[in-house]
């Protein structure tokens, strides 16, 4: 929830995965997630193949086969959103707790959703950890995202750490002015008062952000900015990139086939 842990997730490296063109990595990760999402519930064999693929790709990055696995539990709390499925989907009974009946079909669907989500997160982690964010943005633009949108996201990334620091300073100031009560006793005033203080901090940050953007715009204009961000010509994909992409798509197509047929 608190993203002030803003260490960029990118890990430097020179593995085969690191050296792939960002466009290939983006397309590959998105295709993987699409296939995982489209697979029917209970296609355990196909899920196993996809999981094996995440392990192989993670091992190829040189960061260790388990590194994506270790970080892949971020989406787990959302499982609560689907937790009623085993009880609400009609089907053969598996177990009974008082008035609640757990059905086989419901449990299969719930487990499938969790596995799909977990596989998708792992592939997204591999992409983020092996691609520097500026390269990722370059890839997005080369894949025909609107240049203005990519430029906005680039600016956001550039000033993310600056504004997060400002937010941290505000929170440190609040903490140093607030006495912490004895354990179990609430510090600070009423809910209304605490909300107002937090709101004032956000308002303060709004003004700082606004005025910073005005200064940035003035200095950009002074250097000749006219509203367009230009980009160098996009290099062509190498043979290695094409081979990786074709191999990956073939694997995903076969996995999808196995998932739908068997």
């Amino acid at each position, binding site marked *: 929830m608190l993203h002030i842990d803003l260490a960029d997730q990118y890990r430097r490296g020179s593995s085969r995965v690191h050296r792939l063109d960002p466009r290939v990595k983006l397309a590959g990760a998105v295709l993987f997630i699409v296939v995982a999402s489209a697979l029917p519930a209970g296609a355990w064999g196909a899920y196993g193949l996809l999981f094996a693929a995440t392990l192989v790709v993670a091992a190829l990055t040189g960061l260790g086969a388990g590194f994506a696995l270790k*970080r892949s539990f971020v989406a787990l709390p959302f499982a609560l959103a689907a937790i009623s499925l085993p009880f609400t989907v009609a089907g053969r009974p598996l177990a009974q707790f008082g008035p609640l009946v757990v059905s086989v079909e419901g449990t299969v669907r719930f487990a499938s959703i969790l596995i799909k989500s977990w596989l998708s997160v792992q592939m997204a982690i591999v992409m*983020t950890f092996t691609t520097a964010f500026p390269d990722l943005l370059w890839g997005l633009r080369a894949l025909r995202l*609107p240049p203005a949108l990519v430029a906005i996201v680039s600016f956001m990334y550039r000033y993310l750490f600056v504004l997060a620091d400002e937010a941290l300073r505000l929170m440190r100031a609040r903490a140093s002015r607030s006495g912490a009560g004895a354990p179990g006793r609430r510090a600070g005033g009423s809910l209304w008062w605490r909300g107002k203080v937090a709101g004032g901090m956000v308002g303060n940050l709004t003004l700082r952000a606004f005025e910073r953007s005005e200064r940035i715009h003035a200095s950009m204009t002074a250097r000749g900015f006219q*509203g367009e961000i230009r980009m160098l010509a996009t290099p062509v994909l190498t043979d290695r990139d094409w081979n990786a992409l074709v191999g990956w798509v073939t694997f995903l197509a076969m996995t999808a086939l196995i998932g739908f047929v068997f």
Partner: protein
Amino acid sequence: MSWINLLAPVRLHIPDGFLSTTVSLVGWLLAVGAIGYALRQTRGQLGSRQIPLMGVLAAFIFAAQAINFPVAGGTSGHLLGGTLAAIVLGPWAAVLVMTAVIGVQALLFQDGGLLALGFNIVNMGVLTAFTGHFAFQLLKRILGEGRTSLLVGGALGAWVSVMAGAAATAVELAASGASPLGVALPAMAGVHALIGIGEALITVGALAFIYASRRDLLDLGARAPAKAAANWVIVGLGIALSVAVFSFAASPHPDGLERVAADAGFLGRALGPVYTLLPNYAIPGISNQVVSGVLAVVLGTLVVFGITWALARRQRRLGA
């Protein structure tokens, strides 16, 4: 109150795997349309300021989401930011700012999925910006310009925007077969009715601060183009709704809904004490759990709106 702790992590960032492929694609279509239109609108509004202003303010929303305050029982109130952005910048600029925030959260922090990003942008970016904007405009029309209408409109807009995002998330999960609507809607709406109060408090605090120190900034949002917006958003909502209804009709597993109705909603019973006004978040006498869940959300919104309106009338009479 321990169930709030339990459900608090269920925020609006949907990870991949929970939405079906069809639903995800519909979300992307809606998001692409909204972003494309927003890019053109803000370009006209801001000119060469568009890129630096939107970029820095997106970084601001991202940082502001980390500012929280303790509420009760270990939960904390924090900001989503769509309404604040919509009031300060106008709704279309807010759509862009929120898109950048949600996109970076997905790409950089795996907070929300990539395939689910389309609906995450629609839920937390487009819907929050426009419900916030409309609520704010409505209050301004009732109360006229001024501090009261700004703060009351901001509070109403913030609360309604969080509820709209939560309700939309529940509908999308249900359309994907990830949770029956009769469970998802009351659970999401119930939790976010409280989260929305935190959003409203922070939004009001921030607006009061800006009003006191740099009132001129608020003109930017007031002058922003939004007339054409209303029709677009209504069309978009219409599409989203009809798709949701259509996917229910076409769903290979329509079983969940009847089953919940038969089982009398165990989650609704567990959450019982919270909804003393509307027992089990359902209106007595209406048998269909889903219909009555939807009605309860609508009714809740109307009640909040009525209270706000009455307060606003009273304020104006005192002020006059």
